[in-house]
C-alpha cells in the first residue's frame, strides 16, 4: 500500500542504501505531501535513521535520488532542517544552551562571519517556543534528556525551514517534553510546514501523525495514517525480516558485490 501524491514536499525515488556493500534499504519509492506530519516507523534495524540520513546526504546512496520540493537538496538547503538523534553528540561539550541553539543560524550567517544580534534574538525566540528560555545560560551537560531534545528542536526552529527531518525526537523524553514537542509540530504543520519524524511508539501514531511510512529494510507502506496504519500492514512491518532478502544482503557483503552494475 503505497500512496503517492502530486507536488510532494518529499519524493524518494528507487533509493537503495548499503553499509559495506550490504543493502540496508532496498528500492524505497515514496512521496510525502506538503504540510503533513509523517512518522517513519519500523522495528530496530529497519533502516529508519538510514532513510533520513541518506535524504540529508549524510550517507551515500547506492542508487536512486530524492527531491525536496521538486529540487535537489543543495538547491533548497535553506528550507530544510535536520534534527539528529540527541545521543549522537557529546553533551559534555563546553557550551551553553544558547550557544547550541545559535548553531542553527550558522548557515544563514555564512562562513567567517560572527553571530549577529538578530541571530541571538532568533535563538531566544526559539527557546521560548520550546519552553527553555529560563535555561539559556545553562551548561548543556546539566540538561535532562527531555531538555536536550528541546534544545535540539529550538536549534532547528532557528533555521526557519519549510521541511523538518527529525531522528527520534520522542525517544527518552519526559511526558511534558513529549507534549510540548507534539504541540509545536502540529503548530508548524498548520503553518504549512512538512515534518518527517522517525518514531518508535506505536501507541501514539494515530494521534500524532497524519502520514505514516512503514519500513523494514524495504518500504512496506506509505500513506495517510487511517489508510495504512492497519493491523495487516503493521504485522507485515513488524513480523520479522524477509529471510531471503537478508540472506542476499549478507551474500553481497561477503562477496563485495556492488549494489548496481555500472
Amino acid at each position, binding site marked *: 500500500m503505497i500512496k503517492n501524491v502530486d507536488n510532494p514536499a518529499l519524493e524518494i525515488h528507487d533509493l537503495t542504501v548499503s553499509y559495506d556493500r550490504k543493502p540496508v534499504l532496498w528500492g524505497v519509492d515514496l512521496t510525502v505531501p506538503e504540510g503533513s506530519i509523517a512518522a517513519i516507523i519500523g522495528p530496530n534495524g529497519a533502516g529508519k535513521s538510514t532513510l533520513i540520513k541518506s535524504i540529508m546526504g549524510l550517507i551515500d546512496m547506492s542508487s536512486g535520488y530524492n527531491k525536496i520540493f521538486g529540487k535537489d537538496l543543495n538547491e533548497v538547503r535553506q528550507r530544510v532542517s535536520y534534527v*539528529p538523534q540527541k545521543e549522537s553528540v557529546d553533551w559534555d561539550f563546553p557550551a551553553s544552551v544558547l550557544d547550541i541553539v545559535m548553531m542553527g543560524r550558522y548557515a544563514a550567517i555564512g562562513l567567517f562571519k560572527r553571530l549577529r544580534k538578530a541571530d541571538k534574538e532568533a535563538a531566544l525566540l526559539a527557546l521560548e517556543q520550546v519552553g527553555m528560555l529560563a535555561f539559556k545560560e545553562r551548561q548543556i551537560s546539566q540538561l535532562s534528556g527531555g531538555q536536550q531534545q528541546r534544545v535540539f528542536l529550538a536549534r532547528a526552529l532557528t533555521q526557519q525551514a519549510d521541511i523538518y527531518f527529525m531522528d527520534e525526537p520522542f525517544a527518552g523524553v519526559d511526558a511534558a517534553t513529549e507534549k510540548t514537542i507534539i504541540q509545536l509540530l502540529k503548530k508548524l504543520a498548520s503553518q504549512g510546514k512538512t515534518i518527517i519524524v522517525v518514531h518508535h511508539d506505536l501507541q501514539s501514531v494515530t494521534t500524532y501523525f497524519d502520514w505514516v511510512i512503514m519500513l523494514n529494510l524495504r518500504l512496506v507502506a506509505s500513506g495517510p495514517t487511517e489508510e495504512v496504519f492497519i493491523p495487516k500492514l503493521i504485522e507485515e512491518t513488524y513480523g520479522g525480516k524477509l529471510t531471503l532478502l537478508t540472506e542476499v544482503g549478507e551474500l553481497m557483503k561477503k562477496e563485495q558485490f556492488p549494489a548496481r552494475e555500472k
Partner: protein
Amino acid sequence: MKELIIDFFSFSNPNIRYVVFGSMLLAVSSAIVGCFTFLKKKALVGDVVSHAVLPGICLSFIISGTKDPFLLIIGAFITGWLSIVVMDYIIQNSKIKEDTATGLSLSVFFGIGILLLTYIQHSGNAAQSGLDSFLFGKAAALVGKDLLAFSLVAILILVVVFFFYKEFKLISFDPAFAQSLGIPVKRIELILSSITVMAVVTGIQAVGVVLMAAMLITPAAAARFWTDKLSIMILSAACIGALSGLAGAFISYAAPAMPTGPWIVMVVSLIALFSFFFAPKKGIIIRILKQRKIKRRLLEENLLKSFYKIGEFHDDFELASNQIEITEMRRFTPSQLRKGLVRLRRQGFINKIDKRWSLTNEGYQKGQRVVRLHRLWELYLTTYLRIAPDHVHEDAENIEHVITPELEKKLEALLEYPEYDPHQTEIPYRD
C-alpha cells in the same frame, strides 16, 4: 637568585629573548589548536603527527643539504599531513579500526624517519650535526631565524582559528548537523588538521617528537577543568601554554643543566595535575570534600533519628539516653558515635547532662522529619511501585536523606497525608 630573575626578565640578552618568546609562541599555538583536537577526542593524532614529521625533516635536509628552518618546516609539514591522510584512508577503506590505524601510522612514519636520520648521520655531511635535536627538542638553542618562523606560524594559526571559530566549534560538537546545514565539513576539517600539523611541526623544535603530544593536549585538558565555555577554555589553554613556556625557559636558565623543552612539558603537566585536584566543581578535592560532607550528614541524621525512635518507644521525647542505649537502637561505631554526638551538640540539636544526651526542640524536629520521610517513602514504594512491605526498609534508609523539602511536600500530597506506614507504624507530622 634575585639577580638571576632580574637578568632573565629584563630580556636584554638576545638568546634569552629567543628562547623565551620562541617557547611561549610554540606553547600558545599548540595549546589553542589542541583545544579542538581534545574536544574532537583525537588526542592521539598529535602523537602520530609529531612522530611522522621526522621523515619529512630528514628528507628536506637530504634534498637541500641545509638546516634552514623554513625548508625543514615545509618537509615536516608534508609528511605530518600525509600521516593524517594515511590514517583516515586506512580507517575508511579497510576493516582496521581507529586505534590500530593510529598505531600503524605512527610507527611506520617514525621508523622511516629514524632510518633516514641514521643514514644522514653516517653520510659524513658536516652540516647534519644537531639534526637529532628534533627527537628531543632544542628550545635552549633557538635563534632569530627560528623565532621568525615560529611567529609566522603562530600568527597564521591565530588568524585561522579566529576566522573559523564558529565552524570549528560546530564540527567539534555536531558534524552531522554541520553537514546538513551545507557547511563544507570535509574542507573545514582539512583546515583544522592542517593547522594542527603546523602547530606540531613548529612545536617539536622546542620539545621534540616524543613530548609534543603533551603540548597539544595537556593545556586543553587542564583548561577544561576550570570552565564550561569554549572561548574561555581556549583562552585559558593559551595562558597555560604561555606560562609553561615562560617557566620552562626560566628554569632552564636558572639551572644551567636543565633542558628547556622537557621543563615546559613538566610545568604544563603540573598545572594539569593541579587542575585535576583543585579545580572548583570538577576537581577531585572538592568532590572528596562533598562526599565527606554527605557522610557527616548521614551520620547526624541517623543519630537524630535514633534519638527520636527512643523517644517514640518510651513515649517521652525529652528522655536522656547514654551511649549504650543509642547503640541498641542502631549500630554506630564508637568513634562515629563520639564524633557525631559532639557535632550535634555543638550544632544545638542535642543537650548533654552527666554522660547522657537528649534532644533539643530543633533536634526533635529534625529527627522527626527523617523518620517521617522514611515511612512516607516506604508507603510510596508499596503503593506506587508495588514492592512488598518487607522489602522497602533498605531503600527508605537511603532515600530519607535525599528528599528535599519540595519533594517532601509533593510526596505528602500525593499520598494524601497518610497516617500509617506499610508496617502500621504511625507517621509523625509536625505539631
